[in-house]
C-alpha cells in the first residue's frame, strides 16, 4: 500500500464520493443551512423490546382478512410520505421498486419525500399544525420510538385503518406490542438500525468483542463515542452489566460518570456525531462506537477497507424508526395500504437488503440474496442481543441530557 506519509489516492477519491449515510447527510445539511438545525439528535431509541431475532421466516403470511377495504376507491389517489434520507432503494423514489410495485398493484401514486432530518426538528416544525389538528401535508411519517411515543401520547397520530393493513401481523414478534403503543394500533417499524462497535483489527492487534474496548487504556486517544445520549449511555450501561431497557436513572447517571472520567483521562479522540466515520476511515480512530448503516455504506463503497463491525457480547443498542399516520392526513387508507405492501416479505426482503437496515418484517430474510442473508447489518446473528433505550419521562430526559452534555461537551 502507501507509506505512512502519503495519502492513499484511493482514500481521497473515496472520501470524495463517499455515499452519505443517513446521519452524515443530515449533519452536513444542517451545517450548510446555518446550523439552527440541530445536529444529530435524531437517533436513539426507546421502548420495550429486548431481543431482536432475525426473522427466521416462519409464519410469514400475507393475510387477507376481511374488513371493508375498498381498494378500487383508492385508485388514482396520491399518498404522501415523509421519510428520512436513505430509507428507500438508492435514495431515489422515482426508481424505487417498492414504490413502483405498489403503484402498479393498487393505482395509488406515492409522493415520497426524504425530508425528515431529526426527531426534534420535525416536531418543532410541525407541532403547531398538529396541535391545531390541521394536516401537515403528509399521510405517513417516520420517527424514532421515543418521539413516536411522545406523539401518540399527545394525540397527534391516527390509528391504522386496519382493514387496509392486514399484513401488520407480519411484524417481528418482539416489535408487535411495545408498551407505548399496545398492539401497534398507531405505529409500525419502518426500519431497525444497530449501534455497535467498528474497529481496525490491524491497529488494535487482535479481535475485539466487548463494549469495554471503548474504555480500554490500550486504545487511549484512539476511541470515538457518539454524542447521541441514548446510544453512548446505553452501550456504557451494557458494559457495566446494567440493562438500558429498564434503567433506572441512577444506573444511567453512573454510566454518564464513567464516560466523563474516561473523557477526562483522554480516552476519547472525539465525542462526535455523524463525522466519526471520517476519522475511522483515515485510521486515526482505532475503535469507534458506530451505526450499522454507516459501516455498511463504507464497506459497500470500499470493499478492501479492513474495518470490522461487531455487536458486543454484552449486547448492542437498537434504534427503531416507526411509520405513523399524522392527524389530518388526507389519504390514511392509502398510507395503510402502502405499509401493507411493504409488510409483504417478498417486498421487504429486497428493500431492506438494499437500504442496509434490519427488516422489521417476519420472513423478509427469505427473499434476500445470499449476500443479504450473510450481511450482519441486514441479518444480524441470532446470538446478538439488542436493547432499546427505555422511554424517559420529561424530567428524567432533562436530568440525563443535562448530565450528558456536561460530561461530553462542557
Amino acid at each position, binding site marked *: 500500500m502507501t507509506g505512512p*506519509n502519503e495519502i492513499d489516492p484511493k482514500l481521497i477519491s473515496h472520501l470524495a464520493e463517499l455515499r452519505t449515510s443517513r446521519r452524515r447527510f443530515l449533519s452536513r445539511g444542517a451545517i450548510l443551512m446555518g446550523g439552527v438545525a440541530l445536529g444529530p439528535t435524531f437517533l436513539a431509541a426507546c421502548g420495550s423490546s429486548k431481543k431482536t431475532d432475525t426473522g427466521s421466516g416462519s409464519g410469514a403470511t400475507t393475510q387477507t382478512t376481511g374488513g371493508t377495504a375498498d381498494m378500487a376507491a383508492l385508485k388514482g389517489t396520491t399518498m404522501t410520505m415523509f421519510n428520512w434520507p436513505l430509507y428507500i432503494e438508492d435514495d431515489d423514489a422515482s426508481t424505487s421498486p417498492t414504490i413502483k410495485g405498489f403503484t402498479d398493484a393498487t393505482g395509488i401514486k406515492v409522493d415520497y419525500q426524504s425530508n425528515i432530518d*431529526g426527531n426534534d426538528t420535525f416536531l418543532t416544525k410541525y407541532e403547531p399544525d398538529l396541535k391545531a389538528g390541521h394536516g401537515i401535508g403528509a399521510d405517513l411519517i417516520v420517527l424514532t420510538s421515543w418521539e413516536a411515543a411522545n406523539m401518540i401520547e399527545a394525540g397527534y397520530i391516527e390509528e391504522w385503518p386496519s382493514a387496509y393493513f392486514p399484513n401488520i401481523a407480519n411484524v417481528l414478534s418482539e416489535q408487535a406490542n411495545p408498551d407505548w403503543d399496545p398492539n401497534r394500533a398507531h405505529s409500525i417499524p419502518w426500519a431497525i438500525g444497530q449501534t455497535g462497535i467498528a474497529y481496525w483489527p490491524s491497529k488494535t492487534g487482535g479481535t475485539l468483542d466487548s463494549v469495554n474496548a471503548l474504555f480500554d487504556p490500550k486504545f487511549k486517544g484512539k476511541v470515538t463515542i457518539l454524542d447521541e445520549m441514548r446510544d453512548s449511555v446505553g452501550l456504557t450501561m451494557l458494559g457495566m452489566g446494567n440493562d438500558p431497557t429498564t434503567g433506572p436513572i441512577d444506573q444511567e447517571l453512573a454510566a454518564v460518570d464513567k464516560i466523563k472520567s474516561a473523557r477526562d483521562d483522554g480516552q476519547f479522540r472525539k*465525542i462526535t456525531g455523524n463525522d466519526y466515520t471520517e476519522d475511522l476511515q483515515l485510521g486515526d480512530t482505532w475503535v469507534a462506537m458506530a451505526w450499522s448503516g454507516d459501516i455498511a455504506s463504507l464497506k459497500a463503497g470500499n470493499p478492501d477497507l479492513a474495518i470490522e463491525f461487531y455487536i458486543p457480547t454484552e449486547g448492542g443498542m437498537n434504534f427503531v424508526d416507526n411509520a405513523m399516520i399524522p392527524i389530518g392526513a388526507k389519504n390514511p387508507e392509502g398510507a395503510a395500504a402502502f405499509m401493507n405492501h411493504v409488510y409483504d416479505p417478498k417486498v421487504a426482503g429486497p428493500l431492506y437488503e438494499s437500504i442496509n437496515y434490519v427488516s422489521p418484517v417476519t420472513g423478509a430474510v427469505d427473499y434476500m440474496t445470499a449476500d443479504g442473508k450473510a450481511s450482519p447489518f441486514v441479518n444480524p446473528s441470532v446470538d446478538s442481543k439488542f436493547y432499546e433505550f427505555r422511554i424517559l419521562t420529561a424530567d428524567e*430526559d432533562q436530568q440525563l441530557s443535562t448530565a450528558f452534555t456536561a460530561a461530553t461537551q462542557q
Partner: protein
Amino acid sequence: MPDSDETGTKANRWHTPYLLLLPGALALIVFFIIPLFSILQLSLKDGGLSNYTGVLHDNQDVIIRTFYFSGAATVGALLIGYPLAYFIAMRGGRFKNFLLALVVLPFFVTYLVRTLSWKILLYDGGPVVGLMHSLHLLPQGQGLLGTDFAVIFALMYNYLPFMVLPIYVSLEKLDRRLLEAAGDLYGSPQRAFRKVTLRLSLPGIFAGTLLTFIPATGDFVNAELLGSDKQVMLGNIIEKNFGKEFFRPQLSALSFMLMALILVGVLIYAKVLGTEDLA
C-alpha cells in the same frame, strides 16, 4: 398657485428619505428585531435571570476557550493578512485584480469542503504530520487533529479574506503623495509606514478584525470537524443542544450573553483604536 406647487415639492422632498428607508427598516424589524426579541423572551423562560448565571457557570471554560480561539485566529489573520494586502495594494501593479481574485478564490468552494480538505491534510497519517515528525517539530505519536492549533489555524484560514479585503481597500485609497511628503520631511520609510500608512489603514484593520473575530466567535464547523471534545466552542454547544426544548431557554441566554460580550469587546476596541466614528 406656484406657491402651493413649491410646498408640495418640499413636502415630497421631506418624505423621500423616509420612504427610501422603509424597505430596509421593515426588513430589519421583521428579520432582526422581532427574532431577537423572541430569543430574549425565550431566554427568560423557566428560570428567568438564573438562566444567565446558570449557563455562565456551566460554560465558563467553553466561553474562555471560544474567545481565545477567535482572538488568536484574528491576530493570526491580521499578521498574515496585512502584509498580503499591503503587497497587493502597493506592489500588485497590473496583477492587482488577479491577486485579489486569488484571495477570494477559496470562497468558490463550499466552506464545509474547504474545512474537510484540511482534515485530509492534517490527519495522523497525512503529509503535514509526517513532515513535522521527520523534522522533529512534533513528538512521535502526537497528531494535529483534535488540537487547539488545528482549530485556530482553520478559523484563521477560513476568515482570512475578510481580513485582507478591507485592509486592501484602505491601503489602496491611501494618497501616495503623503508618503512622498513624509520622505521629503526626512522621515525614514519605517517611520513613514508607522506614522502615515498604518494610521491611515486603521479603519481597514478595524473592519477586518471585526469581520474575522465576530463570525469566528460564533463558528462551530471548524471545532466540529477538526477539533475534539477538548475544543468545543459555544457554537457547538448551541448547535448540538438547541433541538431539546428544555435546553432552549438556557441556550438563548447563552446566545444573548455571547452577543453582549462581543458588543462590549467591540466598543472597547473601537475606543482604543480611536475609531469611534465607525463603531
